[in-house]
């Protein structure tokens, strides 16, 4: 009889425990879990905010502008031709024989990832004094957009009509220019922002060593013009 009563009481206690305490404990567990998640998220966000607030807005804007000039996101065809012609003019060299295959002007379905490095190979010819050509070649790799000399061929072209001691040369140069598309999205808001290390800062400061020539496009007159308009 006593055992029976005890069994009934324990059963009631268990049922009561499950009915009353079950949902309360489950709710508490859920709330604690959410609390932990929110604390972690807040920590991450605060850390990110601190990093973002610590970044110098003017400096980063300058760096982005310079990076886009030196290492552009699109094929730098116009900038390249402009830089090369102006650099050769700066050293008093003739510039011509440009051969390049720019490829597709619109974006195509490429196998490469969108942020992969791409290069644009082309060749050209410069002519003039040997020393000027050397200076041109030395300065070429410090001119925006970023270029790498692949091949150089030099030919002496002295003019027998002139009695000049200077060595006139023609240089055939193969060059690669590089570009890399910018990332399309920032990712999640809680995703941390990477801070730059000292060595990376040093690399970025080298952006400012590159010489940038203004892109000058030839002005071509278009449309109908009145040939008999003499400006009366």
């Amino acid at each position, binding site marked *: 009889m006593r055992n029976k009563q005890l069994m009934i009481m324990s059963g009631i206690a268990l049922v009561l425990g499950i009915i009353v305490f079950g949902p309360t*404990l489950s709710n*508490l567990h859920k709330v604690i879990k959410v609390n932990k998640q929110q604390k972690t998220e*807040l920590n991450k*966000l605060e850390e990110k*905010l601190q990093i973002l607030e610590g970044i110098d807005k003017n400096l980063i804007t300058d760096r982005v502008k310079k*990076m886009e000039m030196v290492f552009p996101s699109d094929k730098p065809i116009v900038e390249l031709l402009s830089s090369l012609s102006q650099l050769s003019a700066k050293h008093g060299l003739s510039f011509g024989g440009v051969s390049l295959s720019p490829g597709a002007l619109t974006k195509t379905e490429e196998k490469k990832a969108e942020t992969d490095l791409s290069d644009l190979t082309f060749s050209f010819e410069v002519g003039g004094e040997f020393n000027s050509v050397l200076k041109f070649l030395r300065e070429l790799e410090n001119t925006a957009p970023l270029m790498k000399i692949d091949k150089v061929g*030099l030919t002496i072209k002295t003019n027998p009509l002139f009695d000049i001691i200077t060595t006139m040369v023609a240089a055939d140069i193969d060059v690669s220019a590089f570009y890399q598309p910018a*990332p399309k999205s*920032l990712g999640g808001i809680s995703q941390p922002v990477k801070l730059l290390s000292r060595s990376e800062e040093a*690399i970025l400061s080298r952006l400012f060593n590159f010489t940038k020539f203004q892109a000058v496009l030839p002005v071509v007159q278009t449309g109908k013009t009145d040939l008999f308009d003499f400006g009366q």
Partner: protein
Amino acid sequence: MEVNLFAKKIKRLRDRQRIKKLAGKILLVSMLMLALLMVALSALALRIASSNKNLEQKISLTKNKILELQDVESKQVYLVSKLGSFANLLKLQERHQAVAEAIFNMIPDGTTLQGFEVNEKGTIDLAGSVPAWSKLFELLKRIKEQTTGQLRVVQAQVNRISFGKTGAINFGINIVLSGASQ
């Protein structure tokens, strides 16, 4: 002599009553304790829930502040994404410049170079012509005694020397530069 016939029964009844009372007390105390526990748990849950609300507000505020700085974030992400490739290109370019510099320092005036590939592997096939023997000797001397610049000539091999119709001397030289390959 008095004989109590119900003594055992009465004792059993008393014990049962005592147990019932005790069980009742225990039940009451446990109910109270459980009620207290329930109240405590509910209070804790409420407190944490309120803390969650505060956290939610803080998160929302911080997110808004981050969104205000989205311009800075996008610029930072842009720089970081380009930095790796840019650093590699700069290294490659430095090696190229050093190789080109070394070659240009070797060439005496009057030399015609048919072309040399600026190769980061360090092996350069130098082909060209010089107008006179003295220039060829000067070129070979410069290759042998090359000391300027970052790179040193580790190995140089003359593969070909021939005379052209115009009296020019054609040459083909293989040069291996130290530190040019990585």
